[in-house]
């Protein structure tokens, strides 16, 4: 029996040594990983530059929560001015233009034009911060090999969250132009939460700017972006990497009172916090408001705080939504 005991003891020691030996190269090559991180970040920098300076068009499939929305996409640049244009291929037919922080959406069937000021967003494809260093606190960025998308060779960049309070992403960058051919957002279990991909892409020397139909009356100012310090609430603490990037106080519902809206961002993920007086308005959800709920891969949580209804919403895990909601403090 003693022989058997010794046999297994030696076996365990040998297993340990073997495992260490197997992992030795990866442990030694720590500098290689750092290099990969650097390359990943550089690849994203190149992507941002390419997205801003090239004229390109193609068909993009937007997939979210099992729904597919194919759209014609184009990006044009002229004298430093950029314009993004989307045209839906399926009903409801609509045309969307982003230009200098303003998004205009024209619904063809109803001739309804929706205008929004969105100075904090830059692209329908993938929103990256101006300074990529903003991602350092919450994400690791690294190269993950090569694949093909829409028959175009691409480098894969993985953006991995450092904690479980935000989602990971992968971006497939065209090797020829550094443009994002495909973007995937992963949930905490690795499932795809959202996907955007070009089914075909062309880069042109020039592309025309699309003119939206002239307005017959002037739309009211959509959003007055002011300092977040003016909001009627603040946060006792925020998840790592998240900062306040936008604040507006305006009626969000037709002919109703103003709503305070603060937008938080960690550079990639964004979370909105809305506060409005409760008055006699019913709670914004018909069923239980006890937990975090999901609509189209966006999680939200709404609860009463004093005489106000606070709603937190974003493309982040439910834990993050609840953590932020728990840290809202009225001024």
């Amino acid at each position, binding site marked *: 029996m003693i022989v058997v005991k010794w046999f297994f003891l030696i076996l365990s020691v040998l297993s340990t040594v073997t495992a260490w030996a197997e*992992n030795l190269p990866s442990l030694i090559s720590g500098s290689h990983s750092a290099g990969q991180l650097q390359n990943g970040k550089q690849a994203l920098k190149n992507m941002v530059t390419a997205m801003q300076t090239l004229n390109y068009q193609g068909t993009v499939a937007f997939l979210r929560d099992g729904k597919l929305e194919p759209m014609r996409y184009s990006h044009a640049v002229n004298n430093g001015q950029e314009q993004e244009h989307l045209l839906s*291929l399926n*009903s409801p037919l609509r045309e969307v233009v982003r230009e200098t922080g303003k998004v205009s959406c024209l619904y063809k069937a109803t001739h309804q034009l929706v205008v929004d000021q969105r100075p904090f967003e830059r692209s329908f494809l993938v929103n990256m911060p101006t300074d990529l260093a903003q991602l350092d606190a919450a994400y690791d960025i690294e190269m993950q090999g090569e694949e093909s998308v829409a028959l175009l060779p691409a480098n894969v960049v993985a953006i991995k969250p450092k904690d479980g309070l935000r989602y990971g992403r992968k971006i497939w960058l065209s090797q020829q132009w550094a443009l994002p051919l495909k973007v995937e957002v992963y949930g905490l279990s690795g499932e795809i939460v959202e996907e955007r991909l070009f089914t075909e892409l062309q880069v042109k020397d020039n592309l025309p700017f699309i003119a939206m139909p002239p307005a017959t009356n002037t739309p009211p100012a959509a959003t007055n972006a002011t300092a977040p310090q003016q909001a009627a609430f603040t946060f006792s603490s925020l998840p790592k990497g998240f900062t306040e990037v936008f604040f507006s106080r305006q009626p*969000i519902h037709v002919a109703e009172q103003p709503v305070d809206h603060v937008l938080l961002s960690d550079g990639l993920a964004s979370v909105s916090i809305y506060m409005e007086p409760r008055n006699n308005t019913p709670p914004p959800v018909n069923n239980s408001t006890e937990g*975090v709920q999901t609509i189209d891969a966006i999680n939200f949580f709404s609860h009463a705080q004093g005489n106000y209804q606070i709603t937190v*919403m974003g493309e982040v895990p439910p834990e993050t939504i609840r*953590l932020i909601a728990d840290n809202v403090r009225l001024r």
Partner: protein
Amino acid sequence: MNDELNQKTSQFLDDELPHDQALALLQKMRTNAALAEKLQRYAAISHALKTEQFIALRPDFSAQISARLEAEPAYLLPRPKPAAKRSYQWLALAASVAVLSVVAVRSLPLLGQHSPNANPATLQIAQHAAVPTLPHSPVTTVARSNTEQPLNARINDYLQAHNGSAYADNQQLQSMARLTAYNQK
């Protein structure tokens, strides 16, 4: 109508169908099983013509496999546990130590999060497990189904205000009339 569809399916397989029509055809196939089956048949014919190699399967091939799987007996009775003897306790302990050592050491690169070949799914699970539980905030995620209740208008408004790209990938926004919307004459 059928002829047109047949022609489009054929063009699709030959990569001659315009992109928007191809997308429409693929979407139609999602709801039309017969059309999807037809595409499969055409693909098989095309493959056979191009390669001169084709293994013909009987139409009920998959049904037969399913039937045989269903005919497999289900083992519901719990298996009797072998009586643990004291003499094997040392063996179990030593084996456990060996397995734990291997698992612990192999998981080191994941903890560093720099493994270039790390599967995102695996990585995400590892990170999720590391998140401390939030005090006083039990999270119950309620997946919302469109059939359960109509989309609340207020949440719709918030959704649009939150997400500019919702114009691109949310077809339900059309019903929403924000203050910024107006009718064009």
